Each structure stands twice: as C-alpha cells, then as structure tokens.
C-alpha cells in the first residue's frame, strides 16, 4: 500500500483520527452546462465564471487514482453530464476499474443510441429527475419544455432493463402535489422514488424564501407519502428525505467532511462536499496540480474539518458530536457567517432562531405559482445569464 502522508505529518490536532478511511464515494460533476434552469439547483450561483472543464484524460486519471485509493461508488453528475460527448468512455473506464457507476441526469440528451452505448460501456444505474407531476409545473420549475421528453426517457430506461429511479426535489411550489407525483411515478413504472426536500445551497439558497414550505405542507406530504406507500407495498419503494429546517438536530452531513465523500467540480477543484467551494479561508486543491492521494490525505483543506479540533461550543463538548459531526459546514457558514459554528438547525445553536424565523415566514399562505408583484421577490432561475448578472466580472 502507498505511503500515507498524514501519518508522518507533524503537529496533528489531537482529536483527528490517525488515518481517515478512503474516499469511498466519488462524485464527478462533469460540467456546469445544463439544459434545465431549476430554481432549486445546488450548483454555485457564480458557476458562469468558473474555469474551463477538465478534459477526458483528466477525468480518466482521476478515476484511476481514486479507485486505487479504494473509491467504489461513482456518481456522474453536473450540470447535465449528457452534455459531454465523452460520457461513454468515462463510464467504460470507470466500469473497467470496478466502480459502481451511477448516472444522475435530467434525461435531456438521453436517446436510444446513447443509452445503448452507455449500457455497453457498463453503466450500472440511472437516476432520472422530474420537477413535478404535470407538464405545466415541471416545465415552469425547470424553465424548459422537458416534461414529455422525460416521460419518453423513463420508458427508454425501462426498455434497457435498468431499475427506474425517479428523483423529485420537493419545495413549497410542488410539495402539495406529492400524491400526483407518486401516481405519475407509478404510471411510468418506477421502482424507486426519492422525494428529496430541497437543501438550501446555491440557487436554492438564493430562492429560499419562495421555496421553503410551511410545516403543515411538509406534514401533509409525509402523511400522503405514507398512505401511498401502504397502498402500493413493495411494488415501488418510496424514500422521503426529511427537510432539515423542520428538525431539532442537524443531519450528519457527508458523514463529516473528508470522511468518505469526494467531489471533483467541472474545473478540477477537489471538494469534500459539492457545496464546499463556498467555505472561506480554505484553498481547495485542483486535480490538474495534485494527485487524489495527496489531495485526500495530505491537503490542508481536506484535513481542516476532520476530527473535532475545529469545533466550537456547543458542539465541542456535546456528546452528540460523534453522531452528527456538528451538522453541515456550508449551512453554518451561509446562516451564521462562520463555518465552524454549529449547524443552526440544531436547537442548541445560539443561531437556531434564524431557522425558526425562516420557517415562521413560510407560514404565509401558499400560492400555486408565485406572483411576481413588487412585494414578492422573483424566483431566479439557474442560468449562465443569471449567474453572470449576480456576479458581474
């Protein structure tokens, strides 16, 4: 086995584990290009100003180096990964190396020829996103006309004998349609449906006030989902990702930064979580300059949030710190301005009121499609144009 640079590193914080495990989960965000413009996207709002995408050889090198360290699950995402015409050779190399390959897609660009080639290349699994149950709402929320195309792609996925896995991101504007969304999934022959409540990063953070549902909406959706689950039994598995704003304890985000999860952004920046680029004061390494082993075990930014030496009170002395690792660093930073604070979702955080106040504001009456009057902030769709407008050069 190759030498582990961390073992010989001087002045290691006392509570940092001697050797972190391997990056079991590798997520390649192959591109920020996307035909959809979803209001809840977690991609950074300044994506238009990021550097050029990695080339095919860079991605293949990343795959080989990560696999050699023990990475085994591979997510291919973006943006829309199908906008890259080298997706097939990337999948083929990943499969040859022994990765379990997951394509996370909007379906746009997936036709018979490409799916045939991806199957031949060894693609294991496809997760297809829908934005809502109707053409009108799907197309509004993604700011594209894609609903009919997605339905066609769903049929194609079944035709190629893949399990059909649908992912629908829930928020204030579609959460009341959970019954219709599940009916649609059943009609399409889905094997799994993931109802993922929006997590507020990137574009979703920008649009949070319009996307955060009321507590009553969340509770109704969960009840509807449970009734539906009883009705259909094991024919279709339904997962409901609980929205953390309504909890009293934070999620164990990424199982702790730098513990199992490694993201490579389109420009080659290596991140311990796909949102982590926003964290200030950390210089994340780039795979153009460094190998995955050095990045994972040796870089200051990946070691920074390992262990608990970085923690502040109330986390540092909290017995639950080994369970939730203080929650999400990005959420702590976005809401409190300090990434080392407790995730304010935790009711022990002195900033917890920021979460409860946002939830209280969400109690206003729901409307089907937000009015764009002067009193209502407009939804900002994820697009290169809006990105450049938010972050002018």
């Amino acid at each position: 086995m190759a030498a582990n640079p961390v073992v010989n590193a001087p002045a290691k914080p006392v509570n940092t584990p001697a050797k972190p495990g391997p990056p079991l989960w590798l997520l390649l965000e192959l591109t920020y290009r996307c035909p959809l413009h979803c209001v809840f996207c977690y991609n950074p709002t300044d994506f238009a100003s990021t550097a050029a995408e990695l080339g095919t050889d860079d991605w293949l090198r990343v795959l080989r180096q990560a696999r050699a360290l023990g990475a085994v699950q591979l997510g291919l995402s973006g943006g829309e990964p199908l906008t890259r015409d080298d997706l097939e050779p990337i999948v083929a190399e990943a499969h040859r190396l022994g990765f379990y390959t997951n394509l996370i897609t909007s379906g746009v660009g997936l036709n018979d020829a490409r799916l045939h080639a991806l199957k031949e290349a060894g693609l294991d699994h496809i997760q297809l996103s829908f934005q809502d149950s109707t053409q009108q709402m799907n197309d509004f929320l993604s700011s594209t006309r894609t609903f009919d195309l997605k339905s066609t792609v769903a049929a194609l996925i079944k035709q190629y004998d893949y399990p059909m896995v649908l992912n629908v991101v829930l928020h204030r504007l579609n959460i009341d349609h959970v019954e219709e969304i599940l009916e649609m999934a059943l009609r399409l022959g889905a094997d799994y449906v993931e109802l993922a409540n929006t997590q507020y990063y990137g574009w979703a953070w920008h649009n949070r006030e319009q996307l955060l549902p009321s507590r009553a909406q969340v509770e109704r959706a969960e009840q509807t989902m449970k009734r539906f689950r009883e009705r259909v039994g094991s024919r279709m598995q339904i997962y409901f990702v609980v929205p953390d704003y309504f909890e009293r304890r934070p999620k164990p985000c990424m199982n702790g930064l730098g513990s199992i999860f490694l993201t490579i952004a389109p420009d080659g920046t290596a991140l311990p979580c796909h949102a982590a680029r926003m964290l200030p004061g950390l210089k994340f390494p780039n795979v153009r300059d460094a190998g995955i082993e050095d990045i994972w075990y040796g870089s200051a930014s990946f070691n920074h949030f390992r262990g608990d030496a970085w923690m502040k009170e109330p986390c540092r002395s909290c017995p639950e710190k080994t369970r939730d690792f203080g929650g999400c660093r990005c959420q702590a930073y976005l809401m409190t301005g300090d990434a080392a604070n407790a995730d304010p979702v935790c009711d022990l955080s002195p900033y917890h009121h920021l979460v409860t106040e946002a939830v209280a504001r969400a109690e206003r009456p729901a409307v089907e499609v937000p009015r764009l009057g002067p009193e209502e902030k407009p939804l900002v769709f994820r697009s290169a144009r809006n990105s450049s407008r938010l972050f002018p050069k």
Partner: protein
Amino acid sequence: MSQAVVDAMSRPAVARGFRLQWEAAQNAHVLLYPEGMIKLNTSAGEILKRCDGATTIADITSDLERAFATSDLSADVIRFVTFAVEKKWLQIPS
C-alpha cells in the same frame, strides 16, 4: 408479491442492480447497489460469492464445508440466504 421459499434445492443469484466484489482497500467483499454499499463479513462474503444462480444451496453448503474443513453448515446457509432474499440482495430465479 410472495416471497420465494428458500430450501436446499434453491439456486440463489445476486439480485439485479447489485454487484458483489472483493475490495482490497477494505479487505472485504462488498455488495454494491445504487448509491450504496454493504461491507460483508467473511462468512457472508463466502456464501454470496457462490450464489451464481446455477448452484443449489446444497452444493454451496458442501463446497463451503470442504473449503473450511467443517460440517453442519446447512442451517446457517439457509438462514443467511433467507435473510439476503428478504433484504433483496439475492433473488431465487423461479
């Protein structure tokens, strides 16, 4: 959907969408599935790697007994295969 009965003549196979492989970095067999992984202990790994959809549980059991110079594994193997079928890791082709 009724659960297949697991007996000595069943020919279990790793279920569609799952993949079993040896991971040197973890020094273990793992079962991979969409966006997840189960790290297997030695006996689970040894049983699962023999589940090829063609070999009966009776033959899997004798092979294990030979490989590990032991006997009376039959009940343990059936118990584990039943558990793995319930977990949908294995399927019994009808």
